[in-house]
């Protein structure tokens, strides 16, 4: 009897031992924000990675975008941070990125497919490091509420339409349909730059230093002030908050309160999901100015961070996520413009049956080729967020009548110079 019990206990123990899944030796933390449903797509892809790599467990720490912009830099400055993070201030955090080149299986694959975007993630003077991969390439541009145009019996302007013509048209549509916001633009210096470059802003001097205030910039700033004064742009977006606080008008657009919304390609997935059949919306070509018809490129990258204790495992994960089948699934399901040259040239089969979303993706993808060279230069500039924030902070004050435009120009130049000097200040 006792012997039988002993045998049963041994068998049970052996069974339990064999049935226990192998414990992952390494746990990686990935800080992640989402614009739409890409967090869920990433979770699915990570499950595939963990299945193929049972010794690594990846925890996706989903946080609001504000945490990426405000908390992550402080964590990194303190030497504490995740193993990887999805960031948009690509050059601004470059000092904290880990160069994965030594640990990647095929670094040439990264150079070939992410080359121009890797330059956005590097410190000045660095031409070789591979800090991560682009999770999306973005392009700023306008969306319109097509149903409102139909109701107002106003034809949608075609390619080549100027900003001024668009402003006049959307005001007309808003008046006829009693829509509160004719034109809304995200409260962001990045979005404003598209208008500024179209009006002729050069943004840099001959030596490559930021020289933001010129006639083109002033023409754009004057338009922003005038449009807010005349009610074409609502003060609730640019005027209702302070400093460099970001404010989008995506909720207002989804609620049918905006005729034209200048934002960018990253909004497509959420519009496809939330607007549904409530109204017809579409992306339209970039509005033009005397100098160009351009948006601003941008994007988000998944970068490896120096704070990791597991660089080899991080490199294995990035190798997996950067591979064509995995990354094409990520872009196709998230409805993102690919930040991978190979996939961009092959084209993607976007996983949506929403014709409006597919059409919008095509419009933004075709905009990529027409972006101004100045736009690429600004996107690749390491202190670009300093410029964007100085611009939005001061123009926000102009919009509510707190300071005149002339003072704003002076303050923008001073803010940029002072913050760059502070950022570059080091202990001797």
């Amino acid at each position: 009897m006792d012997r039988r019990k002993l045998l049963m206990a041994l068998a049970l123990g052996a069974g339990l031992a064999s049935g226990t899944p192998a414990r992952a030796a390494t746990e990686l933390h990935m800080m992640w924000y989402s614009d739409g449903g890409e967090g869920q797509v990433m979770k699915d892809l990570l499950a595939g990675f963990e299945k193929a790599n049972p010794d690594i467990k990846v925890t996706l720490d989903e946080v609001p975008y504000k945490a990426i912009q405000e908390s992550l830099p402080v964590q990194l400055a303190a030497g504490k941070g995740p193993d990887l993070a999805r960031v948009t201030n690509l050059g601004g955090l470059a000092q904290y990125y880990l160069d994965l080149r030594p640990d990647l299986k095929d670094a040439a694959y990264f150079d070939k497919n992410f080359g121009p975007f890797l330059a956005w993630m590097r410190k000045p003077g660095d031409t070789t490091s591979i800090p991560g991969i682009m999770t999306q390439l973005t392009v700023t541009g306008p969306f319109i509420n097509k149903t409102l145009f139909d109701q107002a019996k106003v034809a949608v302007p075609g390619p080549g339409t100027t900003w001024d013509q668009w402003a006049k048209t959307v005001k007309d549509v808003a008046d006829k349909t009693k829509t509160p916001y004719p034109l809304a633009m995200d409260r962001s210096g990045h979005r404003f730059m598209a208008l500024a470059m179209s009006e002729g802003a050069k943004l840099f001097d001959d030596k490559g230093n930021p020289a933001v205030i010129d006639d083109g910039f002033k023409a754009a700033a004057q338009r922003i002030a005038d449009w807010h004064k005349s009610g074409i742009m609502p003060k609730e977006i640019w005027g209702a908050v302070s400093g460099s606080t970001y404010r989008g008008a995506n909720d207002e657009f989804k609620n049918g309160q905006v005729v034209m919304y200048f934002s960018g390609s990253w909004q497509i997935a959420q519009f496809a999901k939330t607007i549904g059949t409530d109204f017809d919306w579409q992306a339209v070509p970039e509005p033009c100015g005397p100098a160009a018809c351009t948006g601003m490129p941008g994007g988000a990258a998944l970068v490896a961070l120096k704070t990791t204790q597991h660089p080899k495992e991080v490199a294995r994960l990035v190798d997996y996520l950067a591979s064509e089948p995995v990354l094409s699934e990520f872009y196709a399901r998230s409805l993102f413009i690919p930040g991978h040259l190979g996939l961009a040239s092959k084209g993607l089969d976007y996983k949506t049956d929403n014709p409006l979303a597919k059409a919008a993706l095509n419009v933004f993808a075709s905009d990529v080729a027409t972006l101004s060279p100045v736009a690429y230069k600004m996107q690749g500039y390491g202190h670009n967020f300093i410029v964007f924030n100085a611009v939005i902070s001061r123009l926000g004050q102009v919009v509510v009548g707190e300071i005149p435009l002339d003072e704003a120009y002076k303050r923008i130049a001073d803010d940029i110079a002072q913050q760059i000097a502070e950022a570059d200040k080091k202990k001797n």
Partner: protein
Amino acid sequence: MAGDRKRGGTGAVADALDGAWTAAMGLTEPPMRALQRAIGAARMPWAFLAPNLAFFGLFVFLPLLIDVWFSLTGGPRLFPSQRPYVGADQYRHLLACGNYLDPSTCDQDRFWRAVRNTAEFTLFQVGAIVVVSLATAIALNRRIVAKGFFRAVFFFPVLLSPVVVALVWKWILQRDGLLNAVLGAAGFGKTLFFVSPGWAMFWAIFVSVWAHMGFYTLILLAGLQAIPADLYEAAEMDRTPPWRAFARITLPLLAPSLLVVAVLALIKAVQIFDEVFVLTGGGPGSATLMVVQYIYETGFSGVVQDFGLAAAASVALGVALFGLTLAQLRLSRGKEGAT
């Protein structure tokens, strides 16, 4: 009988607990005697204060010293050892101004706008808190129906998180919020409260008073109840008008409580951040930007975390609060001397 048994049982438990307590205290006696022998009876108070002093030093004085050090350094690095010493540059930068009453003449115009906004907010918010809390306390001190219910109603907002308070009011006040719906139904047009500097400051003050007045009402209610009723009876017998009784009895005897309310509200108002930040975001423009929000934005939410400038601003705020506390101490001592 049953009651006696119950009392007897309770007494036994109390005796047992008392015994256990005495025994536990007895255990501390030998080490305390040894300590007294070692350091002397005169130094024993320091031994009792030591744990609290250590806690205070670690979490108050040390951060204060680090803050002062940060204000004398520059650059975006977080660790003090990596930060270059810049002397008083941050203070010079913060305080450089052509005319302090005109922020646009200052190097750090947003800081001076924040100072001006905080002064304006403090003046009106503290004034409103004192008047409204006093009026409410007097009303709640009278014989009214459902007195307990009304006291709870006025105190309830104090229990809410400032963020919840601000979000609730934000939903009420936004373009398509409750207040605009009511105004619309009454035939008025929509008012965009958060894009008008005047309205934004008004609502920031109103919401803050609404959220905090319950606490101050409670202090004044306690003060009112401490005034002897026979003083009012004597005044009534002398046919003193109510306003005169208020001016000659209530106000003088309530003065210490009013001073406490004014000083507490003043210090809290100077430190205002969360409610206004959530309600208006400091806007429109910088119309409701307060000093603490300026410190937060300069140190933490900018692209370049300017810890040095933020630390200098926080030291300046600390000096202002220290001055206010000293004034409070002097005032309250003056009152004690007078009474």
